[in-house]
């Protein structure tokens, strides 16, 4: 099978790699007081990558590099959104990073390499590329968590993340080797053909699938592979928490799509059962344990776990409707997380971390506008109309009911009612409690504008979800 050696589909990756290397070199010669230069170069590189992701837009899937690289509509869209997410993350966390001595070239470069890893995962056409992309992303993340190396919590979180991440990689490799043993190939398309025609040994395939699904669950932070999430979210500097909680979710979604839909779609009966268990446990454990948290970052960590459970509910329906609902859920969840952590970052200042629930007391008196933004975030996470979270939950529940999983949908609704308690508790703290801390909120102009736009987008997509949903459906139908 001769596949032409075409570089054009990989234009976004190459742009990102080149700009990361440029930032790495330029940063060496930039004096401490002019660190802004590296920052703006990074933003420029990310913007160029985002633009190229759409510029190369592929109507039909294109393979290159001997089939190890797939470029399709899904990949282009997810790459574009990942870039935008990282741009916003950097923008929101600029002041926070500067106050903690993390406004350094290494932070920017590690973020860019991590994004590169995600993009490699998103357009992987081969198990080897998928694994290497995962490692590239994770290695950069481990280092970023530990960047504040004088903080014991951060170093502990990084170690935990590293050890558990290595375990997950081991599980993934073991699963992949089993799939290789059964099908004789690591190429995603060839594996798919081999599984579909039934030439492969089914027992070994299911055996490998168990390990592959475990690795996916670890990356998605689904129960019972969720142990690392609360500790890493709490221990990492908030800016890094925002990074971990946003773009990698998109990559993890792509990872699941490439593995389960791209190569093992013919075994959907087997993985559907596994995903039902994961989704069910995530929704219950995530929402119930989040109630007991007094730390906002830990609470949002459990909220991530619960939300990935809802996302999996759309995914496990094994049809394009379900996948689109899951993609819509992931995209809008990332959008919501960005605003939520953006406000946590805004409330923090030099020598002070606003990571306790009490820090949100009386936010309405200090800044009505940001209180309103946080209200939108909480309403969206709780799934209250007219915010986008409502439509996202509605779409995944509808997808589950369509395939006859009514009992799962009922549990999803019940757990989301439990979840509403701790989301609305923050709203209560902001609007009905006296402020303990009267320090005015300060933010740069660009942060203020983009955070507000990002917050209003939750409302906009909630009222008009059709465009974004249509985009997800088109991307998935054109790719699979």
């Amino acid at each position, binding site marked *: 099978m001769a596949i032409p050696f075409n570089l054009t589909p990989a234009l976004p990756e190459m742009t990102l*790699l080149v700009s990361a290397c440029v930032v790495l070199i330029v940063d060496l010669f930039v004096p401490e007081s002019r660190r802004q230069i590296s920052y703006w170069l990074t933003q420029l590189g990310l913007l160029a990558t985002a633009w190229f992701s759409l510029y190369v837009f592929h109507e039909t899937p294109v393979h290159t590099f*001997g089939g*190890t690289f797939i470029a399709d509509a899904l990949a282009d869209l997810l790459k574009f959104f990942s870039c935008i997410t990282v741009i916003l993350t950097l923008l929101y966390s600029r002041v926070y990073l500067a106050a903690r001595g993390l406004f350094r070239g290494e932070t920017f470069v590690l973020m860019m390499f991590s994004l*590169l890893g995600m993009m490699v995962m998103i357009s992987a056409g081969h198990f080897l590329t998928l694994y290497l992309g995962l490692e590239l992303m994770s290695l950069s993340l481990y*280092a970023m968590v530990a960047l504040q190396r004088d903080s014991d919590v951060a170093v502990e979180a990084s170690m935990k993340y590293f050890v558990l991440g290595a375990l997950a990689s081991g599980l993934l490799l073991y699963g992949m080797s089993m799939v290789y043993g059964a099908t004789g190939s690591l190429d995603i398309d060839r594996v798919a053909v081999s599984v579909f025609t039934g030439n492969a040994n089914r027992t070994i395939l299911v055996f490998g699938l168990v390990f592959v699904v475990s690795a996916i669950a670890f990356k998605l932070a689904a129960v019972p592979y969720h142990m690392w999430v609360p500790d890493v979210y709490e221990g990492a500097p908030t800016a890094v928490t925002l990074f971990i909680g946003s773009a990698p979710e998109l990559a993890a979604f792509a990872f699941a799509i490439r593995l389960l839909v791209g190569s093992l779609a013919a075994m959907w009966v087997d993985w559907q059962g596994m995903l039902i268990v994961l989704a069910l446990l995530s929704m219950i454990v995530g929402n119930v344990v989040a109630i007991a948290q007094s730390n906002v970052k830990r609470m949002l960590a459990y909220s991530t776990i619960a939300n990935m459970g809802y996302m999996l509910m759309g995914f496990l329906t094994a049809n394009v409707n379900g996948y689109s609902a899951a993609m819509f859920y992931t995209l809008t969840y990332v959008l919501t997380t960005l605003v939520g952590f953006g406000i946590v970052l805004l409330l923090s200042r030099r020598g002070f971390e606003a990571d306790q629930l009490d820090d949100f007391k009386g936010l309405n008196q200090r800044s009505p506008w940001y209180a309103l933004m946080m209200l939108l975030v909480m309403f969206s996470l709780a799934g209250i109309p007219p915010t986008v979270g409502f439509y996202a939950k509605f779409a995944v529940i509808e997808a589950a009911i369509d395939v006859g999983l009514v009992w799962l949908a009922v549990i999803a609704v019940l757990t989301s009612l439990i979840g509403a308690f701790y989301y609305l508790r923050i709203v209560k703290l902001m609007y009905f409690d006296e402020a303990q801390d009267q320090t005015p909120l300060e933010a740069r102009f660009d942060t203020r504008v983009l955070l507000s736009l990002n917050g209003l987008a939750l409302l906009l997509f909630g009222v008009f979800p059709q465009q974004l949903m249509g985009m997800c459906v088109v991307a998935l139908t054109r790719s699979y």
Partner: protein
Amino acid sequence: MNIQPFLFYAFALILLCAALLVVISRNPVHAALWLVLSFFSAAAVWLLLQAEFLAIALVLVYVGAVMVLFLFVVMMLDVNFAKMRERFRSYIPVGATVGILVVVEMALVLIGGYLSPAAVQNPAPSPPNFSNTRMLGLQIYTDYAYPFEIAAVILLVAIIAAIALTHRTRRESKYQNPADQVKVRSRDRLRVLQMPSEKKGQ
């Protein structure tokens, strides 16, 4: 009787035992040496699969370079491993239960059918003058050029991360900047004080 299966089982057994000892040995230097043994046995298994280049690379790179460096690090660091293990014992029951459960489940699946020699075919024997190394080189730089490049980027990230996490500018360092020394002006260093003159002998 063919000697190959016998060799395979012997090396596989050594590999498993050595790997187990890496995890359970108390002395980290011993653990590193057991790891060397497990790399050796793995290399021998690869040799049996006619992957001679990979086997040699494993011995040269891992045994020769990585593990020697690792031994150096372990000897240089003064880590109290006994203290780190203090609470380790309390996790043994849970860990052992889960571990044994996973192993038993895996064994139940794998023993049925997969282990029979008929289930997997041996690879066709290579023709004479077949160069494993040459094929590997051709594959890496053509079909697998993209993963190869990503692996390079991963190594770059490892370098950046290692430097970012360990490099500190030392406050007490006596580092001199010649440019600053040359540019210095007398009024930066010398302060002339005006004082009323004093009479001798008072």
